[in-house]
Every structure is written in structure tokens, then in C-alpha cells.
């Protein structure tokens, strides 16, 4: 079963001579338990790809399927439901609601989806605990550093049963140690059965993925799967 599938996806902005081809014929599948990193220079189509995967944008041609359902066939309401239940987003700007505490921010998507407040809060607290910030549960966003807010945003993206986690430079505002913690949490969630798509320009972060795809001018030009054995990479004995 594929969680995310791109079938010959094109995304063009504008038309005629001034058309900009953000994506050109992308094919991609991401399965449960698989973390795929997307790398490429600025303007190569990384963010467009992520927005299409999350149903925040629709293809000009081709199909994007999440758990077998083509997103462009869904009603506005159906699409909102998939975005709320199935997909978790971690974007560069964390978008926390300033009037809600950390735990309330994290619980919000569950509550919107009909989970009882008590249960939603319990799940939110556990998600905050997973990322090492349970003690910040009662803080408001303006009482937290940028790094702390980013971790709350990540907890919100991972709370509940999200089968597809989309991350756009999720460690941007974080120091390297906290950044590593975030990637570990993402990796754990994927190992537990979610599918993950990680956009990054940091090679070190791409190292956490099972597969790395390289975008150039809207097309996938290369893919790096893991090697069979680490021994191929070890330094030769002198």
C-alpha cells in the first residue's frame, strides 16, 4: 500500500510564453515506514512538490494520491478532512495560535476532528513528551523561544494517527542538538508506520531518509537509495 503517490504530476503557473513550469512530470511513491528526502537548489520545485503532497495546491496535470485517493477528486470538505486527519505538516513558519497554550495548540487538530477535549489533551501531552518538551505544555507561544515553538509545531504535526508527515526544513530555527532530536522523532514516527516526505537543503538531514530524490528545474534527476552495507563506506585500512 502506497501512502503518497505522484503520477506524472505537472504544475505550471501562468500560461503561454510567460508560463513557469514548477514541476514537470514527477512520478513518486512513498510507502508506510519510508522517509523520503527531497533535495535540490532554490527554485527546483521542492516546495511545490510538498504543497501538492499536502493538498495545499493541485496539479495542472497528473494526479496526487493520498492513501489511494486522488486529491483533486475530493470536495473542499473532503480535502480538509484528509489534511486534518491523515497529513501532518511541519513547515518553516510554525503558525501556532498565540491565544492557546502549547498543549492546546497541539490538541487543536484532534478537537476539530471530534476527539473529546480530555482525550485530545492527553494525546497532545504525550506528543509534547515525545519531543522532550512536556514541561512547556502550559506556556503560550510568546513565552517560548523560536526553537521551542518549532518543537510545539512538530508535536502538533505528529499528534494522533497521521499516516503522512510532510516536513519543510523542520529544523530551521533549531540548534543542531534540538534539530537532531526533531529528526529522530520524525524517524521514529516513520519507523512506526507513517510515510514521510522531508524537504531539506542540508545533506546531513537527508542522511536520515531511506531515499533521497534530487530535483532540478521541476524534474527528478537522480535518486539515492541506501547501500546494502555500511562496510562499503568504511575507510580502507592503511
Amino acid at each position, binding site marked *: 500500500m502506497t501512502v503518497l503517490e505522484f503520477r506524472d504530476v505537472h504544475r505550471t503557473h501562468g500560461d503561454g*510564453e*510567460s*508560463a*513557469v*513550469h514548477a514541476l514537470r512530470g514527477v512520478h513518486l511513491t512513498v510507502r508506510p515506514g519510508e522517509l523520503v528526502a527531497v*533535495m535540490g*537548489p532554490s527554485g527546483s520545485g521542492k516546495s511545490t512538490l510538498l504543497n501538492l503532497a499536502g493538498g495545499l495546491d493541485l496539479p495542472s496535470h497528473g494526479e496526487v494520491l493520498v492513501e489511494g485517493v486522488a486529491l483533486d477528486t475530493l470536495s473542499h470538505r473532503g480535502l480538509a478532512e484528509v489534511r486534518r486527519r491523515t497529513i501532518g505538516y511541519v513547515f518553516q513558519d510554525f503558525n501556532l495560535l498565540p491565544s492557546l497554550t502549547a498543549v492546546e495548540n497541539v490538541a487543536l487538530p484532534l478537537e476539530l476532528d471530534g476527539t473529546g477535549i480530555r482525550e485530545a489533551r492527553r494525546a497532545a501531552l504525550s506528543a509534547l513528551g515525545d519531543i522532550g518538551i512536556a514541561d512547556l505544555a502550559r506556556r503560550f507561544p510568546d513565552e517560548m523561544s523560536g526553537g521551542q515553538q518549532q518543537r510545539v509545531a512538530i508535536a502538533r504535526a505528529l499528534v494522533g494517527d497521521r499516516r503522512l508527515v510532510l516536513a519543510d526544513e523542520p529544523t530551521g530555527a533549531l540548534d543542531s542538538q534540538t534539530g537532531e532530536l526533531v529528526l*529522530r522523532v520524525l*524517524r521514529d514516527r516513520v519507523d512506526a508506520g507513517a510515510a514521510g516526505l522531508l524537504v531539506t537543503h*542540508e*545533506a*546531513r538531514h*537527508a*542522511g*536520515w*531518509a*531511506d531515499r*533521497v530524490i*534530487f530535483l*532540478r*528545474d521541476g*524534474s527528478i*534527476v*537522480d535518486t*539515492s*537509495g*541506501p*547501500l546494502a552495507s*555500511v562496510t*562499503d*563506506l*568504511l*575507510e580502507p*585500512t*592503511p
Partner: protein
Amino acid sequence: MSIRNSLLALLERGPMHGYQLRAAFEASVGGTWSLNIGQVYTTLSRLERDELVAALPENDEGQRPYEITARGRTELNQWFATPIDRADRPRDELAIKLALAMTTPGVDLASVVQTQRVAGIRALQEYTRLKVSGGGDPDDPSWLLVLEAMIFQTEAEIRWLDFCEATILRKRTVPVPKTDAPVAARQTGPKVAGA
């Protein structure tokens, strides 16, 4: 890399025979580098010749432990106190290869860069996997230090490749004839393997 100094450092913990030294070395580098036992014994005999270690009587299993001498300790302290000279390291083969690729007719420099980049990313994937699986002794974080050194070096190499591609390669692209077409449609960019 000095196996000689590594063995001296390990013997500073106490006397060890060859197999113990090999195991201690591999534990220190988290299995990122394996020594063959022949290398260990060859190095030990040179260290003994130079009076930096001394052989002790064989144990019941017929294994001969070695201990560090005062002279060996001086040499070891000297090693730790002296920075590694960059000029002593092997020349960077990759930099030489790219420089030659730039000036050799018929070589697609962008492909050379991309091939190396993919290899680097694969290496990072494997190092990260090793790190996550906790390949070394959790009570001895020295292996993590070695692994992180390899991660940082690979990361630096990939950044350098990105830099090469963004600056040097762009200058080499064939100039596009002037037309009225918009810039986006005329962008050629470097050609990449598999494109």
C-alpha cells in the same frame, strides 16, 4: 592516521595483547574502521624495536601482552599535544579530479559532481543509520565522535560540491543566444546525470 600512536594510547590504559588491542581500537571507533591483526602485530614489533613498548611474559594461552614504556608515554603525550598538520594529510583526490574534469575535453563535469554528491548522500544515510542503531558501546561515546567526524567531513564535501556547481559550473554553461523568450524558459542550467 597513526595506528602507532593509537596503540600507544590504548596501552596507556594498561597492558594488552594484540587481539585485545584490536578489539579496544575497534570499540573506540565504533566499528567504523577495522584493523587486521597482522597490522597490529607489525606495529607492536616496531614499537618494541623503538623501545616505546615492552613485551611482557606470555600468558597461559600463549598470548604476549605489551606495556607502554616511559619513552612511549612521552611520544604519546607529544602526539596529543601536536596538531595534525594539514599538509601531512593525503591530497584531496576529489578536488584534483574535478580540476582535471574541467579541463579535459568530453568530460561532463556536472555528472562527475552529481555522481559524487549521490555517493556522499548515501554515505550520510549509512552513517546516520549506524548512529541511530547505536553501533558502538553506549558507555563509551568515543565511537560517536569518530562517526560524527565522518558525517561532518561528508557534509562539508557535499557543500563544496554544491558550491562548485552553483559557481564554477554556471560559468561553463554555453551562452544562450539572445531571444525574446522569458528568462525562465531559457534557463538551461548544468546538465545532470540521468536528466
